[in-house]
């Protein structure tokens, strides 16, 4: 394979390209879903192919195919595309410098998930479902999910890089669903939208405690059906990691993508309220410290090298509330005269690498959780995302959560509300943060469904956080008449 790629890269050089890379990807995915004690889905996806990216006369072209015997033809198609684009090229594409690397990276895996019998995985989900139904027999539905992924990657370029990677992902979760004549309520564990995911092996799923947590999840779903609707107004909020993950994702992770800043996504996913002159901007309070860390063990956005052959990095994004910089690719970093932050990834062989989040983590603070709660006179503790939306510049956001727990006089009262919604403006929200819980409460969540780009790509990214407190946040929409 490597010899074939070298030959094609050489052919492209002879044809006059300034730069070319070829990325081979082979992905195996396994999905398992159970519902009410029965198998809902057992599927395996396999895909293998390659993408060829060229820069010629300052224009970019990309072509992808699964027909390996036609690699040269595909490469020449990429060159044809680059040449065609020159008719509408204002500024030549420049790539920031990088080193030529020969290396291998592999996810550290305790138990290879593909060696674990599917029957064993199903048994675990069935036991978790049974525990939910036993704890709350009135549930309308119980659900269990597991997903596993292995990707073998080979990256080679005209600079001489040869990088191989073996990346594993594992994860899963459970859901308890209760209904009434007018309502449907869901509680999930460890997070909504199929669970939690990590670059790890099956040991990650075993450590979740799906069976152990099932009774609580089931009881909470049943309680939500009978709970009052969450009130509207200004409240102090403590947002736990299962929701804060998506808050970070939407209101920090996306605005710091340099391709959005430069308008590359303007016609589709949108832009950003940030611009390069805003480095030094007061993004949040002094409690807000955020890094983009593709090296943290287990993060769903952890890897060895990005899809441009740039080594994984950890870079500061917000330090004590002050905005430090962006995540970038080679072409976007070059515009600022910088080196890439190593965050250009494609969701498979078919697609071109674009700027993606890695693990955008809110670093732990120094509060105990009960200290955060003690500082709230009248507020809510919000858990697990149910719905999300944010404007095209990433300013006005609105999230719905699965459950709100009432806090009065510095204590959780035990009362819960259903259908909590909160909304805000990104910098105002992060500047209202007056405390983040310490590392004891810090946890990573994987987000395996981040959509961006045309044709559409779905990235797998991670977010670490601990519960954090925010002052006077707008909750609910019922007061808007």
């Amino acid at each position, binding site marked *: 394979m490597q010899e074939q790629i070298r030959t094609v890269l050489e052919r492209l050089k002879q044809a006059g390209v300034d730069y070319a890379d070829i990325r081979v990807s082979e992905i195996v995915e396994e999905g398992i*879903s159970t519902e009410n004690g029965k*198998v*809902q*889905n*057992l*599927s*395996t*996806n*396999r*895909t293998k*192919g390659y993408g060829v990216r060229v820069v010629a006369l300052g224009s*970019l*072209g*990309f*072509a*992808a*195919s*699964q*027909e390996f015997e036609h690699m040269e033809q*595909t490469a020449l198609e*990429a060159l044809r*595309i680059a040449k*065609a*684009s020159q*008719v*509408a*090229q*204002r*500024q030549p594409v420049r790539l920031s410098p990088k080193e030529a690397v020969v290396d291998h990276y592999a996810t550290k895996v305790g138990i290879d998930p593909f060696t674990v019998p*599917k029957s064993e995985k*199903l048994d675990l989900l069935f036991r978790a479902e049974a525990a939910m139904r036993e704890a709350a027999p009135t549930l309308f*539905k119980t659900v269990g999910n597991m997903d596993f992924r292995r990707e073998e990657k080979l990256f080679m370029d005209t600079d001489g890089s040869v990088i191989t990677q073996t990346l594993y992902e594992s994860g899963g979760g459970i859901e308890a669903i209760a*209904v009434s004549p007018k309502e*449907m309520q869901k509680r999930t564990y460890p997070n909504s939208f199929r669970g939690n995911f990590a670059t790890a092996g099956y040991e990650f799923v075993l450590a979740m405690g799906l069976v152990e947590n099932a009774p609580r999840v089931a009881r909470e779903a049943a309680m939500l059906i009978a709970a009052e609707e969450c009130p509207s107004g200004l409240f102090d909020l403590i947002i736990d990691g299962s929701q804060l993950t998506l808050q970070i994702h939407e209101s920090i992770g996306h605005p710091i993508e340099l391709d959005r800043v*430069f308008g*590359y996504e*303007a*016609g*589709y996913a949108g832009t950003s*309220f940030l611009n390069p002159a805003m480095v030094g901007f007061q993004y949040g309070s002094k409690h807000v410290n955020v890094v983009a860390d593709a090296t943290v063990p287990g993060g769903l956005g952890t890897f060895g090298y990005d899809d441009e052959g740039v080594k994984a990095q950890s870079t500061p994004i917000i330090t004590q509330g002050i905005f430090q910089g962006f995540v970038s690719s080679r072409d976007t970093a070059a515009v600022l005269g910088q080196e890439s932050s190593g965050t250009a990834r494609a969701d498979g062989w*078919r*697609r071109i690498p674009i700027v993606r989040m890695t693990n955008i983590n809110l670093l732990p603070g120094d509060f105990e959780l009960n200290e955060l709660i003690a500082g709230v006179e009248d507020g809510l503790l919000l858990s697990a995302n149910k*719905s999300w*939306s944010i*404007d*095209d*510049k990433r*300013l*006005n956001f*609105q999230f*719905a959560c699965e459950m709100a727990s009432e806090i009065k006089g510095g204590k959780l009262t035990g009362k819960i509300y259903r*259908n909590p*919604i909160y*909304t805000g*403006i990104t910098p105002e929200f992060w500047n209202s943060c007056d405390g983040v819980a310490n590392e004891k409460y810090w946890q990573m969540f994987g987000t395996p469904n981040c959509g961006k780009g*045309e*044709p559409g790509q779905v990235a797998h990214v991670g977010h670490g956080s601990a519960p954090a407190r925010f002052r006077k946040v707008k909750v609910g*929409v019922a007061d*808007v*008449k």
Partner: protein
Amino acid sequence: MLSKRSLYDIIDLVLAEAKPFDARVLVNAGTQGLTRYANSEIHQSVYEDATEVTITITTANKRSETKTTAYDEASLREVVRDLVQNLTFLPEGEEQPALVEGPPLIETELWSAGLEEQYTVEKRAQLIKDCLDTLDSNHLAYGALTYSVGHLAFGNSRGIKRFARTNRVNFSALVAASAGGSGFAKITGSHPGKLDVFAAFARARQKALLNKDPIDLEPGAYTVILEPLAVSDLISYMSLIAFTGKSVQNQASFLTGKLGERVFDPRLNLTDDYTDENTMRLPFDFEGAARTVVDIICAGVPTGLTHDGQSAKKAGVPTTGHSVNMPNYGGLPINLVMTPGEKSLAQIISESDRALLVTRFHYMNPVNPRQGLLTALTRDGFFKIEKGHIVAAVKNMRFTESMLVALNNVVEIASDREATPSFFANHYVPALKLKDFHFTGKTQA
């Protein structure tokens, strides 16, 4: 790209290997060339050629499925062996729907030589360049021009065969002023004569010219005129959360318990109609069932739901032929056509004393599916109308509204309709004028 014969050969090989089990095979072969532009230059132009084989093997109560891009004989035999192996340990599950038995053959040609000729990579680049040349120095443009070709084939152990050859163009244009205001247009279609890229680009440019010095409005209830792109977004999300048999069976649909009752404005009629020439026109679904026309809403009454085989079996009805091979969603309506009203959009605007005109929405999501509660923000052209004229651009706002309420507050349905992209195909919808539409938040742009 693989020919019809090659796709049928793949299907026959898999079906022979899967015997004596029931199997169905879907082969989706396609190419796509997408030329993307930003800051008035082409920045990403890409091409892909991919063939994916989906194999589903079932017994009365078991189902095992795989997707693979490796379609050589050895790989396919190995995949089928794995699938059969799964059946040995899978516990008895839900009763599986019977394989589709008829008609034996459906083949359709939805491919246009004219489209193929007009949208090569070089011609796409030149078209974009010609559009960009119409802009003044105060404006930049962003968007994508896509040409895709598909060969879709299906077969199952009952001997039925399906094949469709399609090609299609999608074009989007966002024109933005250096001062910040933007306009947007998007078109989709497969008839070369009906695709006017220049006209769409000009619409986006015209909107951008109007979208300047936006005023600030406070959250509250407003009369809105939703252009077809905005209506299409609402309809797409409603179809996902409410119009499928599966969503009602899950008690997640806001139509749960409301079928047959009048819950929307009596002027509202919505049909999933693949025979309408403005839709994608694929006459079969991903389970090989003949697609049927389903009246979703008749005179404000929800009357029909779309099904795949599984949800149909559970409901005790025949499948409607709407499988997209996503059993979690059930059968999805992907060709929704809304009956037009009598006044043109221009006339509705000119007769409006006070209203807000919405070009499109951004980042829509269901807040509470059971209540039909959706949220999204306006984007790329949000205008205040007074006495029949656009008098100001408005800073973008967020709506949070139940569709059960919104579609009971219909003031007008426009007579002119547009083919608008949806999740899987496209809809054909008019503009709607709605009263008391709740904007619950505002943003700064």
